[in-house]
């Protein structure tokens, strides 16, 4: 290459700048505040969008090339997995309940992330963050679709996932993840970025995505494992975007710091409450465990997150206070959650069960401070009762936390023998909370949280029965009607794993493969 040509070549940074920022101009026929109407109302002050440092520099040509190669690989692995009935290679059929939880609880959130980043990507006046957000919007529809395509084959053979979109909008416990993302997308664009880009993608993703993907790998689920690994390089981009957003906002104006601090506090807690589902998945639902919830929290939050907040201290950001509460809960969270789902297994789209003797040993070893003392006795009792034919199903609806929408089943921080209740009187009504943190989130924005679609209230108000249901007729069975509204089939999608159709089919199909008829 001669010098003439070499001289003309732009550096990567300059080249990327002309490919993105250079495209923008300052409008004069319409006012900035009309083109970007949502920039002021959150109180965040941005003085100079040009100070934005692009966290990655990917032009569309490179994006298409790179992503299409990943898609080609992903779908060929998936096709081979489906072709060879790979689902029969999972550790045991209980594992499938993790897939049900994932597709009905998590995949729909990927879709909301897609729409949310399209919104943020439209609204930021800075071309740098806009392009990064739009690329993430495109990635997120990828995640939603590859997950559904991977789960599609499981749905053909196992129950509980057949109408997961419908379930996500209606089933009581799915309002926990749904309300989390509804909360984020209805917040302003800056808060959305702190909620999802930073708190969720940067701080908590290792506690959500990694446990599912490594759980899949440990349990022989090649389909889930493949999309998980394939999404990793996307996640790496999303994480750098989340971190850049927060640094950028904090550097722009000191008045932004307390606003951002409040959001970080709120979203760390909101996100953590959603992770309750992951905690019980890790400790109870994976036949072959990867690590305990407690270990995951210690490694991914206390160690890695601790380092992050040290780094953010120079901007005046402190580690959220709720993490002290979380540390006190880490010995209890998964056990209390699984106990709850075991109770309410008549109204879920997946099966529950009691751990066997070996699994209880594992739990004792992982939770020496709490398992034998508080949880083993009740679980052994439930197991014995089930063996006697008295499998317990709780049919009384629980009180829900107005913010996180989890039933009030968690105990006081530091006292695992006492249920934690908080309440607030607001206007004419009384609202209930699982914790001081959920209570504070409500008190900061009561007009938002009073709107929440609370599954239990809605059932009691008669809004969760199929159209035309008459609840006054004699012998009316409200649970049966609610299950119909959820599009869940009683006896197939719900109840204990023991005796389920999944259990029978899996055993029979695997038997065909491993034994002589």
């Amino acid at each position, binding site marked *: 290459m001669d010098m003439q040509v070499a001289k003309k070549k732009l550096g990567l940074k300059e080249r990327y700048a002309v490919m993105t920022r250079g495209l923008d101009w300052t409008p004069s026929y319409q006012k900035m505040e009309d083109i970007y109407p949502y920039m002021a109302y959150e109180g965040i002050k941005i003085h100079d969008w040009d100070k934005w440092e692009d966290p990655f520099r990917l032009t569309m040509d490179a994006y298409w090339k790179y992503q299409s190669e990943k898609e080609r690989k992903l779908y060929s692995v998936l096709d081979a997995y489906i072709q060879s009935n790979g689902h029969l290679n999972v550790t045991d059929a209980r594992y499938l309940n993790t897939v049900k939880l994932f597709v009905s609880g998590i995949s729909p959130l990927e879709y*909301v992330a897609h729409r949310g980043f399209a919104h943020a990507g439209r609204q930021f006046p800075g071309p740098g963050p806009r392009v990064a957000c739009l690329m993430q919007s495109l990635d997120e529809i990828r995640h939603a679709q590859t997950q559904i395509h991977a789960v599609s084959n499981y749905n053909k053979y196992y129950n509980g996932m057949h109408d997961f979109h*419908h379930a996500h909008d209606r089933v009581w416990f799915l309002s926990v993840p749904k309300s989390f993302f509804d909360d984020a997308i209805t917040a302003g664009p800056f808060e959305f970025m702190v909620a999802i880009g930073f708190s969720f993608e940067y701080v908590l993703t290792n506690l959500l995505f990694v446990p599912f993907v490594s759980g899949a790998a440990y349990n022989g689920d090649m389909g889930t494992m493949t999309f998980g690994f394939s999404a990793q390089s996307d996640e790496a981009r999303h994480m750098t975007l989340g971190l850049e957003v927060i640094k950028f906002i904090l550097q722009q104006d000191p008045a932004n710091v307390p606003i951002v601090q409040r959001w970080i506090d709120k979203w760390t807690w909101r996100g953590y409450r959603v992770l309750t589902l992951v905690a019980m998945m890790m400790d109870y639902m994976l036949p072959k465990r990867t690590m305990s919830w407690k270990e995951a929290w210690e490694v991914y939050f206390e160690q890695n997150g601790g380092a992050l907040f040290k780094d953010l201290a120079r901007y005046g950001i402190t580690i959220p206070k709720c993490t002290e509460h979380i540390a006190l809960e880490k010995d209890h969270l998964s056990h209390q959650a699984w106990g709850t789902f075991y109770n309410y297994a008549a109204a879920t789209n997946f099966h529950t069960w009691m751990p066997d003797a070996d699994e209880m040993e594992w739990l004792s070893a992982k939770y020496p401070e709490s398992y034998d003392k508080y949880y083993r006795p009740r679980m052994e009792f439930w197991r014995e009762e089930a063996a006697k034919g008295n499998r317990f199903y709780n049919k009384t609806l629980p009180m829900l936390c107005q913010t996180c929408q989890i039933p009030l089943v968690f105990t006081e921080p530091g006292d695992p023998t006492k249920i934690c209740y908080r309440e607030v009187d607001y206007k004419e009504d009384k609202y209930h909370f699982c914790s001081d943190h959920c209570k504070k989130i409500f008190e900061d924005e009561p007009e938002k949280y009073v709107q929440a679609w609370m599954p239990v209230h809605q059932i009691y108000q008669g809004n969760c029965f199929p159209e035309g249901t008459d609840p006054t007729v004699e012998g009316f069975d409200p649970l049966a009607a609610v299950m119909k509204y959820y599009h869940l089939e009683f006896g197939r999608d719900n109840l204990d794993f023991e005796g389920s159709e999944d259990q029978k089919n899996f055993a029979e199909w695997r038997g065909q493969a491993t034994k002589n008829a």
Partner: protein
Amino acid sequence: MHIDLQTVSIKPLRHTFDNIARRIGADKPATRYQEGTLDMQQTANFHYRPTWDPDHDIYDASRSAIKMADWYAFKDPRQFYYGAYTLARAKQQDTAEANFDFVESRGMAANLPESVRDTVLKLLIPLRHVAWGSNMNNAAICAYGYGTGFSQPHIFHSMDQLGIAQYITRVGLLLGSVEVLDDAKKSWVEDDTWQGLRRLVEDSMVVQDPFELFVVQNVVLDGLLYPLVYETIIDDVLSAQGGTSVAMLTQFMTDWFAETKKWADATVKIAAAESAENKEILAKWIGEWRDRAAAALLPVARIALGDRTDELMGEVVQQFNARMTKAGVAV
């Protein structure tokens, strides 16, 4: 331990998800486009209203004047879900890369006739800003449109337009340097030639109705701009003046428009066929914005077409009208 289970023949309990079966009329195997598109957007029991738009739900069909009994009536004839989309674009990108290499390695850019080079710099390079505006508008349609059948193609379109803005930027860098881009932006912001178009683009950015924005941007503006610039001016007029290499550099845009207009036509057709009210609204939007866009494009077209501007612009408008009539909206 891995067991080879290929030989096991087991009967599935069902062939697709229930929502897909309801939509395709039976429990039968569905395509990846269908499973990745239908009912993807949440529809019920939203928890909170957007603090940025408290008059609407998170997803709300009433953001548009177009009324549909079912927004999943909109189907992408290309059946693009993410995987199919990126594979298609990567293939086009390979061709584009080969074309850029070909032009570059033979020094064809340096050998362009001066008049052709001049036209490209004056006419094509400022269009990177129009593509950027489209990137933004399509992001809005994706964010605020209703139903994944309608919203999904717009994120693809948005990123395509960013890609197009970047291809035009590369043409500028190939023919000159960063100054070429700066000059083009200066014309875009200051020269009379471009002000009608810039005003139109900025006005489109405040259009609130996502379907109207689809009409303004993807049906009308692109429906006139692409045939005018890429098909008429670059592929015909400039090629005849020794500028075939320019047509190679913009092949992505030509192919892209040929592909995407099928989807845009299908979308107009479905909305128009839904009701007389829809058809009336569409005719009004298309007619009004067409007149504005054609007027705004006239001085731009004159850069390359001189005396023949009115005649060729007239042809482009006529073709556009015929296209819309075929899609069910007489304008």
